[in-house]
């Protein structure tokens, strides 16, 4: 370690080295680790700010598990065996995020492969542009555009009814189809680019070799391309899953009125509920479950953590 620092300073000079260390420190510690620690600490405290601010720092300001208990079992006078609303919203959020992630993999892998190995020069650039340009538009604006598109009077319903495919319009927003599509669309770039990066470095000869050995196209993908792209696919999946599960604006705008997204509950505790410790506990729970879930998936698909960073 000492050796490393010595080399680092010798190579980059004093000013540049200090600058880089400081920037990294602020980025990782101040902006990432510290807030998470505060949040974590918060989640184990009573909500004294609202109940009785004078107790803060006093003998009663001790750690408690009540917020986590609340997430699982609800208030003490809840007749149900567990907190049905919150837990089912939680499960629904995770499941939907999984679904959105799968949807994005299926959608993005062929596109990424096409970009990396089939499309040539001009076509590649054009495709890249048409992928990136829509994301210049503000996220909220896009969400509202989806509302217009998927609404009961929206263009999709109009077209389907006009073509006679539907006899009467479907409320895509109420059915959450707008939300799933919106989430899927919102993160396609985060899926395409890691896969593209991974697939692009695959030696074309390997694809040709597999073909030459008699392999049909699907087996080439199954045995050669996908195993090679696995770190990229995992990296994309992790990002899409985490961001979908943690999305707030899209569920707020294009989510069905009857179904909640877990982040909305967190938001309510922080904002309207004025219960920061409970909000923190909910947020920490979401984070921990998501991380465990991702690690589990990585374990199942035998991807090492370091590979994701490539």
């Amino acid at each position, binding site marked *: 370690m000492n050796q490393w620092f010595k080399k680092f300073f010798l190579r980059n000079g004093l000013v540049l080295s200090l600058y880089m260390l400081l920037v990294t420190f602020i980025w990782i510690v101040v902006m990432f680790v510290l807030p998470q620690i505060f949040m974590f600490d918060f989640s184990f405290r009573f909500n004294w700010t609202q109940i009785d601010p004078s107790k803060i720092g006093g003998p009663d300001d001790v750690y408690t598990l009540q917020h986590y208990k609340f997430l699982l079992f609800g208030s003490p006078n809840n007749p149900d065996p567990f907190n049905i609303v919150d837990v089912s919203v939680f499960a629904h959020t995770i499941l939907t995020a999984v679904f959105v992630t799968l949807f994005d993999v299926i959608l993005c892998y062929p596109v990424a492969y096409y970009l990396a190995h089939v499309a040539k020069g001009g076509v590649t650039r054009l495709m890249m542009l048409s992928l990136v340009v829509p994301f210049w538009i503000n996220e909220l604006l896009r969400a509202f555009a989806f509302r217009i598109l998927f609404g009961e009077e929206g263009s999709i319903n109009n077209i389907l009814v006009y073509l006679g495919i539907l006899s009467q319009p479907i409320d895509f927003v109420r059915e959450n189809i707008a939300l799933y599509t919106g989430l899927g669309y919102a993160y396609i770039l985060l899926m395409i680019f890691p896969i593209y990066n991974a697939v692009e470095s695959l030696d074309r000869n390997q694809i*040709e*070799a597999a*073909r*030459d050995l*008699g*392999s049909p196209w699907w087996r080439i993908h199954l*045995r050669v391309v996908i195993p090679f792209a696995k770190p990229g696919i995992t990296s994309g999946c992790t990002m899409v899953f985490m961001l979908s599960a943690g999305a707030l604006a899209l569920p707020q705008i294009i989510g069905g009125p009857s179904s909640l997204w877990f982040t909305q509950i967190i938001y309510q505790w922080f904002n309207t509920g004025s219960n920061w410790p409970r909000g923190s506990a909910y947020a920490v729970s979401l984070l921990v479950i998501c991380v465990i879930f991702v690690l589990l998936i990585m374990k199942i698909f035998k991807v090492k953590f370091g590979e994701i960073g490539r």
Partner: protein
Amino acid sequence: MSADVTLENITVKFDEFTAVKDVDITIKGGEFFSFLGPSGCGKTTLLRAISGFQEPSEGRVYIGGNDMAGIGPNKRPTALIFQNLALFPLMTVWENIAFSLEVKGVSKKERRRRADQLLELVALPGQGNKMVNELSGGQRQRVAVARALAAEPEVLLLDEPLSALDLRLRQHMRTELREIQKRAGITFIYITHDQGEALTMSDRVAVMREGLIEQVGEGTKVYDNPATAFVASFVGENNAFQGTVSVVKTEKVIVSTGSGDLEASLGEDIKLSVGDEAIVFARPEAMSIVKRNNTIKNVLNSKVVYHEFEGNFWHLILEVKNGMKIKISQINDGSTQVYEKGSELKVQIDPKLAVALPFGPLAAE
């Protein structure tokens, strides 16, 4: 099973550029056939046309008498060994070898058995469970051969597979490949820019230049009786003396060159008349130093520029009359005299070993 390969007037065009021009050739079943040429001569394109990765713009490919038009590389009875081998890095050695069997739906047990058999054949027994990156360059080479043979091709296509190996290993693998070819008894089509490889391994060699085939024949024929100036200058080392034909005898001509009048044998089936532009080719080993000045025929006065020692040979670089540099080689028998820079030497060219050919493009240095 080995199949013959017939290329019928194959032309391959990429936009404006024509990579292969009207190649018409038949490769016999069980033959070890090489396409030899400098990079960019179209030999790889030709190989891709045989394997099915490149549809020819004109002409047809027949393998074992069957027209291959419209048949993809996965359906042809060929297997290709890539220049960089293209082994699958995420599979073990035996999975690599058995990939074509996996495609055919062969059971895992049988695949393993076949892979072990092939590992035996390429002299790598017991290496099946290793990953490809745990093997050395030469071992990977053998795995690539085994993987291609596992597909039971009738024709094996090799795209300069030895070029990444060091000299000693390369020489060893030449013998090895030749042995494997004999044991497997199938047609090998080999692409290379290395004339040593082509000459040592092949039954026949086709020399290519700019998409054209310049000469087809056995190695000795291509070396001793080059058909064109390009073949003479590309296959092996050669000194080229350019000039005009002054005298034509039966099977011999005299060419007036800038370095003096030179008598040389007329190349096989070559016609030259007085006044034609011609090149006399004399290999470094076809020239000798004359001590006493008792002959005047085919003797060049020269000055030593420098000498090179290559173990079995001493090479002398000499400057002749018109400033041209020539190279002569002498076997190092332990008593070879070393000539210092600047010493004057008389060099005689053996007219029987020198070949006169019509003027034409030479291989780039």
